[in-house]
């Protein structure tokens, strides 16, 4: 099992969710986050005070998929989240040792 962690533009969330649902990914966890990378922030001016806002709002999605599903899931996220401009975000993939469904006690792939 693999954990896909993707940081994307907030307005791309719906498209990414739809794309993942279509290929059979059945669950998703979403977090509103802030961060910075190559995309520059902006300055805000309040009377005489100027603030550089370099932590930009992003959406972090996390989903765990089986290994055979990984490539398709990654392609789906990339296709949906991409605008070809700096700030589209990143995807990280890591291994998951175990997954359990709390209600039934199912484990591994069955719990996804």
């Amino acid at each position, binding site marked *: 099992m693999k954990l896909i962690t993707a940081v994307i533009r907030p307005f791309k969330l719906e498209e990414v969710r739809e794309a993942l649902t279509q290929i059979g990914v059945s669950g998703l966890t979403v977090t509103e986050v802030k961060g910075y990378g190559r995309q520059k922030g902006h300055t805000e001016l*309040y*009377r005489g005070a100027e603030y550089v*806002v370099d932590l930009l709002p992003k959406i972090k999605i996390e989903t765990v998929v089986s290994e055979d599903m990984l490539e398709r899931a990654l392609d789906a996220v990339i296709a949906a989240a991409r605008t070809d401009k700096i700030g589209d975000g990143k995807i990280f993939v890591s291994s998951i040792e175990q997954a359990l469904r709390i209600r039934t006690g199912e484990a591994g792939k069955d719990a996804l």
Partner: protein
Amino acid sequence: MSAPIPDREATIRGRPCQKMRSSPSEFSNLREPHAMTPSIDSRRFLPMLVALGGGALTLLLTQPGHAQQVAAAAAALPAPVPNKGDVAWMMTSTALVLLMSVPALALFYGGLVRTKNMLSVLMQVFVVFSLITVLWCIYGYSLAFTEGNAFIGGFSRLFLDGTFTPDANGGTFAMAATFSKHTPLYELLFAAFQATFAAITVCLILGSIVERVKFSAVLIFAVIWFTFSYLPLAHMVWFWAGPDAYTDASKIDALNATAGYIWQMGALDFAGGTVVHINAGVAGLVGAFLLGKRVGYGREAMRPHSLTMTMIGASLLWFGWFGFNAGSALEANGSAALAFINTYLATACAVLSWTFVEWLHKGKPSMLGAASGAVAGLVAITPAAGNVGIPGAFAIGLAAGVICLWGVTGLKRLIKADDALDVFGVHALGGISGALLTGIFNAPSLGGPGSVQNWVTMTSGYPGMLAQVWIQAKAVGITVAITVVVALAAFKIADLLVGLRVSEEDEREGLDITSHGESAYDL
């Protein structure tokens, strides 16, 4: 001869007050035709005719048809009663000025601080407004608006004593005069109107010291500063013997000598450029220096938490300011109408000038800029409201937007104090600009009404531009000197008694939770 004022018991904003049941005298001769005449014109000529001599002559000229009948009834007529239109307008104005503080100023300021300090700002404004109102009714009104010396009044109206006296006929109301002869106003109402001015003035100062000041220090400061800076200045600028007292030329000098020091100089301050805005703005700056900067100032972002609230506050200030400025005419008359349009127009001009200069200079026109421009325009037109014509409103409004924009940017960097919400940059600077420009645009040659130079004949004039601006500048200087000294003392005393600032830990956590035990939002 007509119009001696019987039973002068007290004087308010220069207006002599007499008990309504005081002996009627020939005074009432004048009132009757006036009351019967729908035409405003006859009222304008009245004082002149009085000067020419004789109530009877006046009657003949103004109301020939009723003259004899009225003269016959004269002895039995009561003293003049307030005009119901004036009374209704002044009650409305008083409530409008209250609205300017709670909620308008509180929201305007509250939106500009961080989320963790929102309630502390609302609370400081709410409680200080109430505190000053109470002090006003205990001793403030008396010290500001009764006769004393040129710098402070007396104690004859402690607890508003004598403004209402119960009797078998349902009670007697003492009268305050207005700016027109024989046009009294209930003194209680005048005292209420002025109470709201005193209260909002002290609230204005809070903007300089928010987000770090201790609540108890705010209250101690408010009591001291109100007593020793606001009250003397209100007396010095606004107290005079009132038009009805000026019955003939021989009395002028003696009556003038009873007025406040700055009034005697001939300074023009329609609704409080000196007493309210310069007074508060400079005190705020003193506070900002003494308290020091907020923790993290200049390093951490201190973004306004809700410019939506700030916009609502600024808009309500604009709305309420009609009561503040047009209400300061004390009558529902032409002077009030002039103050009304000027308050409306100058503010719009300042919104535009701030917005466009900011747009050109900083790249973007901001909502905070527009809201700040509105307040700057309102402040600057305050001393000018009924003292300038339409050209003055255009000029003062446009100038205020640009001057105050510089006040909160360039000047603020020079001063290097953490005047958190720019009370000095907007209120002191806008007030000073407005006070000086009032001296210029009061000139009839620039569309201004001039000012009454002779209260016996009620004739207006203008002493000349240099002369008037010099008078205005002296009034500004005296105001700044008094408020600096008193604010320094008041903050020092508060510091000695309870300390001015909360602990650094509490400041980081936010005053809402640490000072008041609650949170503004549950989001």
